Structures are given as C-alpha cells and as structure tokens.
C-alpha cells in the first residue's frame, strides 16, 4: 500500500468516526429563555418551576452527550406586557436567546408573539392561555403547548351544562386572558343550550371577591364561571365557601385551575371542584418519575400542566434543531416541529398542528375529598379523558391565517 493510499484510508476512517457528529447539530450553543412571572400570583404555576422543567428536558434529551451546548436563562416579566416585551427584545437582540418559553399571562404572551415573529425566533408558549395565539394572532414562529382557553372552556363548560348548569354568571379577570376565557366559555354554554345571565370584570390580583360573589349570587345563575387564574381563583373559591354560596346550591366552575391552586386551597375547601386540566402528574410511571425529580429541585412543589408543557416543548425543539441542523431560522425550526410527531415521556405522543396548536388528550377532573387523598399531592380523580381530537378547537374554526 502506498503512502497515498494509507493516508486515504486513514482519512476515510476518520471521516467515518466523525460522521455521527456531522449528522447532528454542531452549531453555536443554543440559548433558551424562560420568560415568566417569577414573583407574582402565577409564580407557582409557572415561574422558577419552568426553569427546572427546561433543565430536566435538556438533561433527558442528552444534549451534553450529543455535543450540543444548551443554556437556560430566566426572566421576570412581572405580569406587565411592556416589561415582558423589553426583556424579549433584549434577549433576542443582545443576549443571543433563540427560544422564549413559558410566558404565563396572555397580555405578555401576545406581545412576545409579535416580537418573536419580527425577529424570526421561536416562541414555545406553555404558560399563557389565550386561544388567540393559534387563532387570529397565529404566526409561523409560535407554538402553543400545554393548554388554552378554548380547551378549558370546552371541557368544563360542556360538563357543567350536561349536569344541569344551564345558566351562567361570569367573574372575569379584566385583561386579555379573562376576555378570551369568558368568550370561549360563553360560546360553549350557548352551543350546549345554556344561557349567560351576566358577569363582572374584576381587576387582576384582587384581594377580596366577596362583593363580586354577592352580585353573582343575586343573579340567581346556576353556575358561577371563574374566568380568572392563580390567586384570583383561589380567593374566589374561598369566598364562595365562606359566604355560603356553594352551600346554597350555586355551582362554581373554575375555568383555569392548576394543581398548585388546589394545594394552596387545601382539599377541605377545594373538594368536589370539577375542572379541566391538561396534565396530571399521577397518570403513569413516567409522569410520576418526572414529578419526583421535579419536586426535588422545586422545593417539594409538584409540577403542573405548564411545567410539563415547558419540558415537552424543549425536548421537541431540540429534536427539531437536530434535524434542521441549524438554529438560525426560527420559522424553519417551527415548520420542522410541525412535521414531526411529538413524543416524550412526560406528555406522551401528540402533534403540532398547522396553526401552531400542540394537541394531546386532556382530563376532566374532580378534586378528591381529604379522606380519599392517600399521598402528597394526591388531589385529582380523573372523570373523563377527552381525546386530543375533541379537546382542542377544530383547525378551521380558529381563523388562523396560516390555515388555508
């Protein structure tokens, strides 16, 4: 063998060794930004827990072993759209962030949605609820992961009307999210043959709901729909119990209740509450394992749907970057994410639709009685599993410009 031949063989051999690396992403480090409410009323539902979820996802994806460097940073938008927007701009323009995750609070999410499109980056929203993100406001750069107002309204609204709750009064959080949730629920109630008697718009982060609850009581509606979230929901539920509203026969429909809210209320007050949730930690061995790891890093607090959504979206994003082999073009990555079916241990199998909606089965749950709860955070009885095809708004009905 001549020297030339030897060299050629050696080169070929080295090329073969390096081949797997070429098949993978080998570009600059990827930076994920968890933009959340780190200190306010949504901090337990999303917040620092979402950073934990993102880190677990990177670990489980095996980024380090694959030679991918992935960093996570967190930011606090304080539930203010202007603060959130300026953090998003700074992250994209100066700090080299490629993806913004989480973003509870629909007002902030809508702002980030526009900026992400403008900068051609990626926005994987798990925290905000407004279904407009996959409706009129859908973009080629945004995916809405865990849940949305239509899904919540559809699950809970249908179930309540079927149980005879055919007249409604709404307590609505006075901003984008509350309006969307109220609108989507009203549609379901009317479609199912119920009617809406009235409602009040309550400023965000209200301490005392008794005044509004008395108005709801005076309306004589069978169901009081709580189109709010976090501390507002828990305060409404406590107030209703205290003022004898639930005992007098009116039913509460918590339209967005998170497992952390149930934990904060305690089973004594929350028992019997029926609502729709997009994820439950005690579903199978994988989710239980995830919950245990998560809780260990999150001060003992268990994950909710938003945390699961962040985890699942990060895994899918990294798979897409690996497939596209570049992180530069945000829209191209989102396109890839829509082509590939989603599959991870926490949220199971699912898909990302054309309008950016990630679909998966969701659960209609009832909160257990204190006597039925056998272990920490054992809070839900799953009444029905709503299949992915029925859980989310039909593709054609959202008025998303990407759907033709």
């Amino acid at each position: 063998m001549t020297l030339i031949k030897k060299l050629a063989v050696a080169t070929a051999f080295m090329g073969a060794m390096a081949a797997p690396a070429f098949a993978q992403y080998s570009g600059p480090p990827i930076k994920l930004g968890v933009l959340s409410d780190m200190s306010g009323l949504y901090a337990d539902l999303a917040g620092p827990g979402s950073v934990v979820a993102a880190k677990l996802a990177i670990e489980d994806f095996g980024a380090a072993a694959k030679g991918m460097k992935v960093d996570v940073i967190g930011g606090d938008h304080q539930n203010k759209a202007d603060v959130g927007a300026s953090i998003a701009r700074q992250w994209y323009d100066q700090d080299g962030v490629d993806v913004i995750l989480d973003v509870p609070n629909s007002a902030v999410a809508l702002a980030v949605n526009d900026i992400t499109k403008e900068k051609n980056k990626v926005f994987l929203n798990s925290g905000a609820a407004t279904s407009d993100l996959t409706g009129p406001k859908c973009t080629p750069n945004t995916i809405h992961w865990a849940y949305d107002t239509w899904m919540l309204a559809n699950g809970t609204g249908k179930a309540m009307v079927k149980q005879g709750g055919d007249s409604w009064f709404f307590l609505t959080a006075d901003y984008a999210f509350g309006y969307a949730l109220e609108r989507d629920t009203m549609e379901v109630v009317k479609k199912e043959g119920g009617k809406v008697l009235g409602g009040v718009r309550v400023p965000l982060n209200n301490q005392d709901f008794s005044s509004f609850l008395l108005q709801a009581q005076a309306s004589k509606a069978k169901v009081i729909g709580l189109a709010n979230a976090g501390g507002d929901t828990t305060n409404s539920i406590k107030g209703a119990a205290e003022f004898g509203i639930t005992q007098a026969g009116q039913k509460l429909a918590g339209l967005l209740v998170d497992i952390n809210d149930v934990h904060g209320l305690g089973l004594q007050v929350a028992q019997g509450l029926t609502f729709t949730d997009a994820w439950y930690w005690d579903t199978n061995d994988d989710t239980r394992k995830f919950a245990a790891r998560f809780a260990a890093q999150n001060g003992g607090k268990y994950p909710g749907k938003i945390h699961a959504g962040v985890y699942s979206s990060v895994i899918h994003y990294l798979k897409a970057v690996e497939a596209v082999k570049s992180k530069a073009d945000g829209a191209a990555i989102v396109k890839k994410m829509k082509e590939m079916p989603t599959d991870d241990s926490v949220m199971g199998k699912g898909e990302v639709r054309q309008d950016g909606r990630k679909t998966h089965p969701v659960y209609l749950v009832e909160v257990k009685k204190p006597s039925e709860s056998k272990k920490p955070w054992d809070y839900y009885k799953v009444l029905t599993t709503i299949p992915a095809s029925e859980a989310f708004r039909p593709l054609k009905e959202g008025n998303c410009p990407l759907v033709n």
Partner: protein
Amino acid sequence: MFELLGISSQALFGQLLIGLINGAFYAMLSLGLAVIFGMLNIINFCHGALYMIGAFVAWMLLNYLGIGYWWALILSPIATGLVGVLIERFMLSRLRDLDHLYGLLLTFGLALIFEGIFRQKFGSSGLPYRIPPELTGGTNLGFMFLPNYRAWVIAFSLVVCLGTWYAIEHTRLGSYLRAATENPALVQAFGINVSRMITLTYGFGVALAAIAGVLAAPIYQVNPLMGSNIIIVVFAVVVIGGMGSILGSIVTGFTLGIAEGLTKVFYPEASSTVIFVIMAIVLLIRPTGLFGRGT
C-alpha cells in the same frame, strides 16, 4: 324593597357591609402606620410585610406547634412585635436624626427581603388557614348571608382601633408619647426614657399589623404577597386621612372600604383605582389630608 340606579337595596346593603369588612383591615393597618409616623416620623414601608409575617406566624403556630387561632391572635402580634422592636433598636434608631427618606428606603428594603424569604420558602400560591370552628357558619340577615367570621373581624378591629385611639389620646402613657413627639429632650429631662418609648411604640404599631394579619389569615390565603397587595391602598388611606392622625386613619379606613365596595357594584373595573382617585382629589383640595393638622 326599593331600587337605586338599578341596584336593589338588598345588593346595596350587602355591598356596604362588605365594604365595612374590608375597611376594617384598612383601618387596622393604617392605624399602625399612623401611630408609627406620628411618634417616630418614619414612613414604615415594611408594614405590609409585617402584616404578612403576622399571618404566617399564625399559620406556623398551627402547623408546626398545633396552636390554634385564639392563641395565635395573642402570640403572633407579640412575636411580630418583637421583630419590630429588633428592627427599631438595631436599624431605625440609627436613622432617627436623618431625613425621612432614609427610613423609607430602609423599611422598603426590609419589605422586599421579608417577602423574598417567605416566597422562597412557601411559594406564591399561598397556604390554607381554616376559620376557627367557633366562628364558622353565618347568619342570614335577609339581605345577605353574613359569615360569622367576618362579623367578628368588624367587631374585633373596631375594639382594637378605638382602644388604641383612647390609649393615645386619653391616657397618661399616651400623653407622654405625644409629648415625646413634640419635644423629646424636655420629656427626657422629666426622667422618662424616650428612646425606649419610641422602640415600644414601633413594636406596638407592628403588633397592630400582625393582628390584622392573623385576622386576615382565614379569609385570604396566607400568602407572601398579601402585604404588597394591600400596602399601597393602606398608604393611600393614611394620606387621605392625614399622616399621623390616629382618628383620621380609623375613620378613613372604614369610609374608603365602603367607597371601594360601592365602586365594585357600579363600575367594577375601577374598583382597584377608586381609592387613588380619591387620594388625588383630597391632595389637591386639602394637602394635609382630611384629618391632618396643617404644618
């Protein structure tokens, strides 16, 4: 039953009563602030955080030591008041001769630290605290269902407020306090330990916040953010009533609670701003507040 602007009298009475309940909290908290400002000339920005600590101490007494509501109503103000005494002794007393602004900055910083610590430890969703069994249930007043616990809150806070007012305005100890505010050197010359009196006054103001915290615990979530939610409103109450005016803060507290309650009926969207609108108007017309003495 008559109707007023489309609202039935039933609903109206209910709302007035609820306004009174919220007013009770405003009054208790603004009273503590007024006492502290009147005696120490310190704008106590950590008042909300101390109110929150009062509620958390009650929660901890119950969950760690099994001590119930009634004992908490006594023990939590004492414990929190001691925290106040330490704050005064070791920090605020060093600022006594400086501009008000330093006290404000220090207490604001303390508030952020306290809230941060509790949020780190307990999260932001809040923790449940049950209404004591003696006060569960309620009475049907015809126009509304009045939970017994809320009735208790009104009664108890009225007693505390009026008791404090009486102690400061009509007792010998109160007269020492008022004299020490006017001319500390002279009062010291009469053999009264002014420095200790100031420390105890601060501790007492803090204890008032803690009482409000314990009263609030069963109604709201025991939540690290509960203080910052309410403190801004309470400051507005103090400003409207007149900084340092004891009676002013009590009357204004209850009145603004009612004003807020009525706004919740007629235009709910404005309920979180109405107090500030009133504050702006009062400041324009009477810059020293409704009950404040001109300086």
